[in-house]
Structure formats: structure tokens, C-alpha cells
């Protein structure tokens, strides 16, 4: 009996030769414990070394191997072939991002948006190392812990139709991280982040499709973070109307 095989359709784009991206079909050995990334690696090692794709950790931590698998944004290291076999697996670069080459996308825009929300603890005054640990209770940690799980894999950006319709939208992961630091008891940077988060391109470009939270491989809930930021920003706005508001 012949070894079982699986067909992988991969969207290729070689800027030096391809005017538009084209699908190329590869036949790979089927292994029930292989993930899509294993199949891509098999292609690169044994069939076609010109195929380009990103990966690093192979354990759903680094966030670099995100691709569209049968139309759904997924980490290729976290998606088993057995969930598709004997059907075909169609692999494309993440939606809503320009294609650099094959499955590699241009992530510069996301990186800029991420940096714009200052995703780090901002303290009111510089804390010298000699001040020791900046303590926080487990209960305080729990109020934002899920948002710390974000690995910047950009699957939520590929899932969000608003990213495609309004490309200036800051987007789910960056806004979830802004919320994460705003909720951090050690942080005093909310006002700085609100300049971006509470702007039109911030939370107000979100129409609560909710797809970001559905595709997140780390169970972060960016949709929730954004809606909570909308409510807090609205409260700010009303407070500013009051004579004793600032």
C-alpha cells in the first residue's frame, strides 16, 4: 500500500517574476502528528527550496508563523494536518497585510501601531533599581493577566474586516495591550496611551465584529478590551463636560 499523502495549496508570490500571486500545489507525506508548519518545512527541505515562510519556536509562543489556513488565520505550528486530512490544505499569507514574498507579509505597519500605544509600564517618576520590586497583588494581576498572553502573531489583524476596510485602524492586539497596561496597577501612562487609543483610528474604528477574539491562539480577548476602552473613553468625555471635570 502506498504511503498516505496530502495536497497543500500554497499561495506563491515571487516579486521578481510574479505579477500576481499564484497557487502552487505540493504533495506531501501525510503524518497524523504533523502540523502545517512541518509540511511547509518538508516542502522547503525536499521539494522546493524557494518557498519562503516565517517561523521560529514551533510551539505557539513566538508568534511568527501565522498564515491563513483554508481561509482562517492560524499559527501553522499549532494546526494539525489531521484536522484537514484527507481534504486539501490551502495556505495563504495573512489577510490584510501586503505580501513580501510567498507566505511572508510586511508587518511594519503593525509594528508602528504597536509602538504607538506604548505597550510598557510607564511610571510617574523614574524608579531606581534600588527601590526593589514593584509589587502587585495576585488579584491585581488577574484583572489584566489574559491580555499579557498576546504574542503579537497578528492573527487578529488578519481576522478583522475593519483592518481591511479602514487600514488606519490601530487594531485589536495593540489596543488590547494598551488596555493591559492601563489596567496595570504599577502603570501611570493611560493618558499618554489614550491619545491613540481613544482617537477615531483607535477604539472607535472597531465595530465589534468580534473575530479577533475568536481566532486568538492564546485566548486573549481583544474585542473585550476595545469595548471596555470605549466605555472608559466615553466616561472621560462626559466627565470633561462637568464643571469640576478637567
Amino acid at each position, binding site marked *: 500500500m502506498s504511503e498516505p499523502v496530502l495536497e497543500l495549496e500554497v499561495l506563491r508570490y515571487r516579486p521578481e517574476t510574479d505579477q500576481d500571486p499564484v497557487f502552487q500545489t505540493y504533495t506531501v507525506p501525510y503524518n497524523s502528528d504533523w502540523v502545517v508548519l512541518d509540511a511547509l518545512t518538508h516542502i522547503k527541505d525536499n521539494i522546493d527550496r524557494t518557498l519562503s515562510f516565517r517561523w521560529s519556536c514551533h510551539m505557539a509562543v513566538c508568534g511568527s508563523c501565522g498564515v491563513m489556513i483554508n481561509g482562517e488565520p492560524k499559527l501553522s505550528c499549532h494546526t494539525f494536518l489531521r484536522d484537514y486530512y484527507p481534504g486539501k490544505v490551502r495556505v495563504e499569507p495573512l489577510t490584510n497585510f501586503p505580501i513580501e514574498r510567498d507566505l511572508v507579509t510586511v508587518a511594519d505597519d503593525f509594528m508602528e501601531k504597536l509602538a504607538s500605544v506604548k505597550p510598557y509600564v510607564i511610571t510617574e517618576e523614574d524608579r531606581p533599581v534600588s527601590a526593589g520590586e514593584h509589587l502587585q497583588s495576585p488579584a491585581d494581576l488577574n484583572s489584566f493577566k489574559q491580555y499579557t498572553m498576546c504574542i503579537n502573531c497578528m492573527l487578529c489583524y488578519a481576522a478583522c474586516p475593519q483592518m481591511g476596510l479602514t487600514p488606519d485602524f490601530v487594531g485589536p492586539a495593540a489596543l488590547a495591550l494598551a488596555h493591559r497596561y492601563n489596567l496595570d496597577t504599577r502603570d501611570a501612562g493611560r493618558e499618554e496611551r489614550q491619545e491613540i487609543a481613544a482617537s477615531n483610528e483607535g477604539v472607535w474604528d472597531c465595530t465589534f465584529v468580534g*473575530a479577533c477574539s475568536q481566532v486568538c491562539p492564546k485566548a486573549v480577548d481583544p474585542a473585550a478590551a476595545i469595548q471596555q476602552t470605549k466605555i472608559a473613553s466615553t466616561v472621560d468625555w462626559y466627565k470633561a463636560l462637568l464643571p469640576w471635570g478637567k
Partner: protein
Amino acid sequence: MGEVMDRRPYVREMPKSWWLGQRRYTFYMVRELTCLFIGAYALVILVGLFRLSQGPVAYGAFVDALQGPFAIAFHLLALVFALFHTVTWFGLTPKAMPLRLGEKTVPGTAIIVAHYAVWFVVSATLLLVARA
């Protein structure tokens, strides 16, 4: 320095039919569409209030107009969309309004159930007031 390759990033256009291919996007668009029916129903109520302000004859004509088959069909349709609107948005409330009591997070289902309870109480009160 090595050879610098020409970059030519390829931007894919978003097809107009983006919301038709996937269930979650279609579901979202239907939820967005419900607002048109909610809006139209609100207009009917406003017209009713306006006719009421014009006196009993005007209001009577308005109520008569509501008995027509078109008005009944519209109201049934608006009811279906209003229910879809309500159920889907109630389902999302725990995301927008998570509740913490002390160190515990209130389960999302409790927040959803509370919304249904308030909806029921408000509706029942309105019906009682209307009958009185």
C-alpha cells in the same frame, strides 16, 4: 554589502463580498442590518406620538393604518430583527462590562441573565402601566 533585492510588496484588494464567505462575517453583517429595522420601528413610534399630539382623530387614523397587512408584515419582520439584535447584543455584554466583586470575576452568563431579567421587568412594568 550584499546585493539589495528590489522589494515589491503585493497588496491584495478586499473583495466587496468579504462578508459572504464566512459565517462569522455574515452573522455580523446581519446584526448590523438589524439597526435599520430598529430605526424604522422607532420612526413608526415617533409618528404615532406625533399623531397622538394632534388629537384623538389623528391618533385613531394612525392606529387604523397599523391594522393593514403591510404594517403587520413590517412589525413581524421588525420583531424578528429586534429579537436578533437584542439576543446578539445581550450575548456580548459580558465583554464590554465585565464585573468584578472583590477578587472574583462575575461569570458572563450572570451578566447576560441579568440583562434578560431587567428586560422582562421593564416590559412587564410597561404592560401593567399600559393596562392601568
